[in-house]
């Protein structure tokens, strides 16, 4: 147990990857591979829950820290650790991965590589949340791309080639600036350890590369921001997202929306704000503007879609806009009570959106699997045919819409409450955006479940079948958490709040 406690993070981090490698040796039997992958992904979840229960929210700094030699030559090490901020994300990731794998039981094409990629993807994502070393952060940041690229490219739908390459190039192009910035920091300090770099970087004075330090910092600040903005995505860097989400296989979309987008926001919290507090404050209005644009245009974009999956995809732009709005507010007024509230909201929103977006994409996948269409106009009046599915869909949509009593309300309320005194006009416009959030979600429900029944789905070979128990099982944990957080947010907000108060 001591060993486990000492290596808890690396266990969580590497078990999926190791399991993926072992999978290489397994015989090609679909059932075996599926269950193996599921169990392999449940172990990290169990460990993450264990870690959550042993986590002390009030203790300062990072917990469960581990440091191993990795690339000593350039001063980079395998330095892992979690605080209130990242443990939430670790929990989210380890939760969503088994669900996504369970959701993928319907995949029949090349199961082994598919499952392996998923497990590798989990390691990549977890690594970003755990890394306390700048280079390591980047390593996992990039590593996550590859499995996702192949998941979209190989198991995606019709337009997958275009979407996957766009995803890859956008994200890599975005992280180019991040890479260069990290290189500069590494070249400057000879180490990549986040704590050391943060301390030294904030203390640095004078000229750098022949320019005033503030100029250099501003440039690198933007390099970082663009990298993370692409991932979040913030308008106008979001155009890869609807394509990627739409073309990705169901489980891929779940993870993409549920976790990958959070990587970007996490980058803001973990790197941008601590490393560039001044620049963040100076440019917070830009972020706020872009966040507002994301919220409004995301909502409008969503409203305009006739493709169910694209509708959900644009809703991610909209929801992640709130995260960024909260971050911008916190950056502008760091240290104030309002800022803390906004930040709490932003982080909780990350978690919540992870739950609801994953759920929504899954539900879209469920109906797509049966109808082989995502065109909203092809549906209509399906509620009587599939009442359970309809109920689940309405429940999840309401969470996404921000219905009080469900989780989305809590986080969006906190963001708005915190931001309002700081960024009044932006918040006001964003709240108008919320109105359209309601509109597009209701439009989605209306088009799918209500209205006149499309007879095509009622009889014969096209008769719509009800959601299967396995699929319900995927949704149950998500719905439970959605409800639980909505009713009693304190269990998670406590952890987040203590971290936020210390950090920002």
């Amino acid at each position: 147990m001591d060993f486990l406690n000492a290596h808890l993070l690396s266990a969580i981090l590497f078990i999926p990857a190791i399991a993926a490698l072992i999978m290489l040796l397994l015989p090609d039997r679909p059932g075996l591979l599926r269950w193996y992958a599921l169990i392999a992904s449940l172990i990290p979840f169990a460990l993450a829950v264990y870690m959550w229960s042993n986590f002390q929210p009030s203790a300062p700094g990072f917990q469960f820290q581990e440091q191993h030699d990795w690339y000593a030559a350039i001063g980079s090490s395998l330095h892992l650790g979690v605080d209130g901020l990242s443990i939430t994300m670790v929990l989210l990731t380890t939760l969503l991965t088994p669900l996504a794998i369970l959701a993928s039981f319907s995949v029949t094409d090349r199961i082994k590589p598919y499952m392996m990629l998923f497990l590798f993807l989990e390691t990549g994502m977890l690594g970003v949340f755990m890394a306390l070393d700048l280079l390591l952060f980047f390593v996992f940041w990039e590593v996550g791309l590859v499995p996702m690229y192949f998941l979209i490219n190989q198991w995606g739908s019709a337009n997958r080639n275009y979407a996957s390459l766009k995803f890859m190039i956008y994200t890599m192009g975005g992280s180019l600036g991040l890479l260069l910035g990290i290189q500069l920091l590494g070249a400057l300090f000879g180490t990549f350890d986040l704590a050391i770099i943060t301390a030294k970087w904030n203390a640095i004075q004078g000229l750098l590369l022949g320019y005033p330090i503030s100029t250099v910092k501003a440039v690198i600040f933007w390099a970082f921001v663009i990298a993370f903005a692409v991932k979040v995505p913030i308008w106008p860097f979001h155009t890869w997202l609807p394509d990627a989400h739409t073309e990705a296989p169901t489980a891929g979309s779940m993870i993409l929306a549920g976790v990958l987008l959070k990587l970007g926001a996490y980058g803001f919290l973990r790197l941008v704000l601590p490393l560039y507090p001044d620049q963040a404050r100076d440019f917070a209005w830009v972020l706020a503007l872009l966040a507002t644009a994301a919220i409004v245009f995301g909502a409008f974009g969503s409203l305009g879609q006739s493709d169910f999956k694209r509708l959900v995809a644009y809703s991610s732009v909209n929801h992640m806009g709130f995260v960024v709005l909260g971050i911008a507010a916190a950056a502008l007024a760091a240290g104030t009570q309002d800022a803390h509230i906004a930040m709490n909201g932003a982080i909780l929103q990350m978690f919540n959106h992870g739950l609801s977006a994953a759920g929504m994409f899954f539900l879209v996948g469920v109906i797509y699997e049966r109808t082989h269409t995502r065109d909203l106009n092809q549906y209509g009046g399906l509620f009587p045919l599939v009442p359970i599915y309809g109920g689940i869909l309405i429940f999840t949509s309401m969470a996404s819409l921000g219905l009080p009593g469900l989780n989305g309300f809590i986080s969006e309320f906190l963001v708005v409450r915190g931001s309002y005194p700081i960024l009044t006009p932006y918040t006001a416009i964003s709240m108008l955006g919320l109105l359209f959030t309601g509109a597009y979600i209701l439009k989605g429900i209306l088009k799918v479940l209500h209205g006149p029944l499309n007879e095509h789905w009622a009889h014969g070979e096209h008769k719509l079948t009800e959601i299967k128990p396995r699929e319900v099982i995927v949704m149950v944990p998500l719905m439970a958490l959605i409800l639980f957080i909505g009713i009693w947010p304190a269990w998670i907000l406590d952890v987040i709040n203590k971290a936020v108060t210390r950090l920002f």
Partner: protein
Amino acid sequence: MTFPFLSVIVFTPAVAGMVILLIPAGKKNVARSIALAAAVLDIVLALSVYVTYLTQHLVGYQFIEQYNWLPALGISLHFGVDGMSTPLILLTGVVMFTGVLISWGEDHAHVQAGIQDRPREFFAFLFILASGVFGVFASLDLFMLFFFYEIAVFPMYLLIVIWGWIQTREYAAMKLTLYLFLGSVIALVGALAMYWVAGHNTGTYTFDMLQMEKANFSPQFQNIWFLPVFFGFAVLGGIWPFHNWSPDGHVAAPTAVSMFHAGVLMKLGAFAALRVGIMLLPEGAKYWSWVIMLCAAVAVVYGAFIAFVQTDFKYVIGFSSVSHMGLVMLGLSTLNKAGLTGAGVQMFSHGIMTALFFAVVGMVYDRAHTRQIPELGGMSKPMPWPAIGFIIGSLVSMGMPGFSGFIAEFPIFLGVWQTHWLVAVIASISIIVTAAYVMLVVRRVFFGNMPEKFVDHVGPVTRLDKLAIGTLCLLMVGIGLFPAIMVPMVQTGVEHILHLLGGA
């Protein structure tokens, strides 16, 4: 008396080559078996040298052997390896081994894989070349370095002209030979000048590089001779604007020769440029480093763009080699710890990667009889191993973290940041371009629909091919995950170079 590792490594291929020539022409398999045996012996010895050097934490020149060769002129057969050359010895062993494996040749209804025509001569010439390559990496005597260098160059002509691609082989082989020969003899003049001046300065006329390192060449002398010497060798390293021979040569060469050529020979140029140019003329290197950096940066970006627009599978790889070797030169030009370390690792990483690339290209071409990317497609179905190998190679090539390419490229960029940061920014463009073109190639060649004409005509690869692919992939991933198995060793070599640069 310790076992003479290096001389056995160096001379085994040549001896094996001669033995092969004595075998009756009909017994192709005997010739192949002898070739394989020699290759196995060499890779085992190279590996043991490598492991010894690594695990015993050796520094400086080790495994030293010295035999008089021409005492009158101070020439001796002086072997020894340091942290820079040990990985390259291993690299040569690996490429030789895998090269023999994929050249084995196996008669198959639709597959003309490997070398069927005059395998005797093929292996003999290839092995003489290998001896030359080993010799250059192991030589501590300037004259012997040239001696082996030329031995490594001329068999290339025959190998390309006899077994090469029928359309361009005569032109490409001659172009290659003349470029390389001219470059090396120009460097030779510089080396002779160094010999006389060093003798004049120190009183002993010797080609021993360990002695010449202490020769105190005047800065003026170094400034005059550095560029001819460095560029003379760097021609073989494919430095822009003298890279022109290289893609043509790669494309025209038969598979195993392309592997050797891009995998090892280009390293020969970079290595010799380092050992003779930078290490013996450090002041000149400092004076001219900006020229090298400029040329290297152009090579990096230009090579990537040109690779992007190629439609011939093999030309893509050929130009990507120019781009990647540009990174090696970029690392060398920084003259600092990070840059040189990166260059050292990149030499190994690129060698393995490009050997793998060419091996896969060869396998595809042998079966599809075309290398035009638009005509190919869906190759991953019949040939999963080459597809996976190529994907891993691609990830290495785009500098994806977790693979050796990242481990190599990152310090190079770090080093460039410390000297001319703008160059780092410009050179980083190549990362995106590289990602774009390798991913496009992967998708178009290995995925998508297989054209009708290939269905049932493209067979799987042989077991030997798989072994070769597996070996190469293992190395790339191994170094990517555990840089400690190579980087510290390279660093010991770099320390010595830095000492020369600082002490001069």
